[in-house]
């Protein structure tokens, strides 16, 4: 039990999160949006797990469930060995100290009327992490330095910083309480190309420096996810369809959706693009209000057979730490 505790910082089992759709004056429930429908995955200590998928596939919802910002309908979320779903509000606060979230939009996720220093230092006060004003000051300065900002800028306000610098403030705030798990929800997609690399490198360097820091990295950009993650989980319509290490993901993708998703990302090299096979998916992602029966990818799949619409395919192991949910594999 103890070794398992140490190896996996996060262990999510059969997570389900349904959002009710209500109608009429009495707000009668008429349907469920199955945003996350039976998701199981683990994050090892010190590892980065990438969660990739298109909009509406439930990747952000998973992040929010892990932080217990949503109360899931079913399933278990073991964080450092403890199931956090039944925890009362008071207990969850203690858990949240050890988890942090970096948001997508560095423009709306920082309070414009709070100074950068107080944004970064606020978690320290909320969680009683410091004993004296001097210690508070020192810790905020240190956090600024860790993310590559000059501590003398801590009195400035968010609008005085560029997008990349704001995202650094967001990272500093996330690190304030020395979390063991950081959930990064599209942390670079709002930034300019030349600035994205700065933030990616910062996240990588922090992980090398702070031993045991784990990331759950949520993004839609497959090349970024592959670059930063040790393992990648590909999601489609509320379910994980393939999990593997990021090298195998590119070398040997098994699920037809993973293959299509990889093929849809152009590589910045015209010589490779010339000969690359292009799989262009037909149609669009169906609504999670009324997902297709069985494997929800089957209406768009090139390898579909009648059995595909009969039952939801479970994840099965096809190689070392490589799991695929497809009956054709």
């Amino acid at each position, binding site marked *: 039990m103890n070794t398992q505790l140490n190896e996996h910082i996060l262990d999510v089992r059969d997570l389900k999160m349904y959002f009710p759709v209500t109608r009429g004056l009495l707000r009668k429930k008429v349907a469920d949006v199955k945003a996350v429908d039976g998701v199981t995955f683990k994050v090892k200590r010190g590892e980065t797990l990438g969660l990739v998928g298109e909009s509406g596939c439930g990747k952000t919802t998973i992040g929010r469930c892990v932080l217990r910002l949503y109360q899931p309908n079913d399933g278990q979320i073991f964080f450092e060995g403890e199931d956090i779903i039944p925890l009362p509000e008071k207990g969850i606060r203690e858990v949240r100290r050890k988890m942090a979230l970096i948001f997508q939009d560095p423009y709306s996720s920082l309070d414009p009327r709070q100074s950068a220093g107080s944004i970064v230092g606020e978690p320290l006060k909320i969680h009683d992490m410091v004993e004296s004003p001097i210690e508070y000051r020192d810790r905020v300065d240190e956090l600024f330095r860790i993310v590559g900002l000059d501590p003398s800028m801590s009195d400035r306000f968010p609008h005085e910083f560029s997008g990349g610098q704001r995202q650094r403030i967001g990272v500093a705030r996330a690190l304030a309480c020395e979390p063991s798990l950081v959930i990064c929800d599209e942390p670079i997609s709002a930034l300019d190309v*030349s600035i994205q*690399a700065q933030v990616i490198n910062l996240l990588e360097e922090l992980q090398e420096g702070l031993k045991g820091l784990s990331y759950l990295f949520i993004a839609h950009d497959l090349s970024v996810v592959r*670059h930063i993650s040790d393992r990648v989980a590909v999601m489609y319509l509320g379910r994980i369809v393939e999990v593997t290490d*990021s*090298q195998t993901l*590119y070398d040997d993708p098994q699920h037809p959706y993973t293959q299509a998703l990889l093929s849809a*990302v*152009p590589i910045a*090299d015209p010589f490779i693009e010339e000969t690359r096979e*292009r799989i262009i998916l037909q149609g669009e992602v169906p609504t999670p209000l009324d997902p297709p029966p069985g494997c929800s990818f089957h209406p768009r799949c090139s390898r579909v057979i009648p059995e595909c619409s009969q039952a939801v395919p479970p994840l099965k192991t096809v190689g070392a730490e490589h799991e695929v949910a497809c009956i054709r594999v």
Partner: protein
Amino acid sequence: MPEILQVNNLETQFFTEGGLVKAVDGVSYHIDEQEIVGLVGESGCGKSVSQLSVMQLVSTPGKIVGGEIIFDGQNLLELEANGPEMRSIRGAKIAMIFQEPMTSLNPVLTIGRQLTETLELHMGLNKSASREKAIEALRDVGIPSAESRIDDYPHHFSGGMRQRVMIAMGLSCNPKILIADEPTTALDVTTQAQLLELMKDMVEQYHASLVIVTHNLGVVARYAQRIYIMYAGRIVEAGTTKDIFADPRHPYTIGLLKCIPRLDEERGRKLVPIVGLPPNLINMQPTCAFSPRCSYKSEKCLKEPWPPLTHLGNEHYVGCFNE
């Protein structure tokens, strides 16, 4: 192929309260018939404003202050922006697709009304003929049951479908040039791939040229024959896609290629970010705007005005003293 568009020394400036912004600062480029050209740069580099200038859609405080835009042997800048001649070109011979398909479609008019408006105006078709043509255009871009969907409003369509409508609208008058300004940035990866493929097929079918304005180097590597790299209102490097990717010469182009993660890279490659920030374009110095971020800069870069483009052979041009 002969040239269809030739832009010479285009200058578009914005007279803002904070000072003068030279959004497009002496840009020259050309587009050949039936060619796919990529215009690459980060936000604020002037790539969109240069295209809006071609359409004469720059509004105050912006103004086109110099240059020539030769289309079909005629300088468009000699035409009045709202005059009948320019109106007969804009949307008909040169069409544009914008980034945000929700804000570029009118929410209170049906898709059909918005499509037939251009057809009636530019092609002189009557009501039933233009409706017929609009249905055909929607079918061409892959909208299922076009005959009934033509009476729907933009909010009935998903983001990808709306962008299909925009493509149908852009191509409905058989334009010579289709300008697509970040056409797929707001969309999902697989939808992006669908739409880019559709655009490529459609311009081939219509024998039109396509200008893809984007920040995504992968997209131009896949589709463009030639590319222009822009930085702070200027073109810093131009050439065939293969020349630029095989042998990038401007420090900014080199930096861009090193700082993006590639899908096919080996694990553990470290990204090399471009240090510093894109410049603030208000009241800029006349020297090379990339020099503060450049690792190859010399004394000359900090003293002399921005270097002109030098020819490296085979359509490859670069604007750098130290290439």
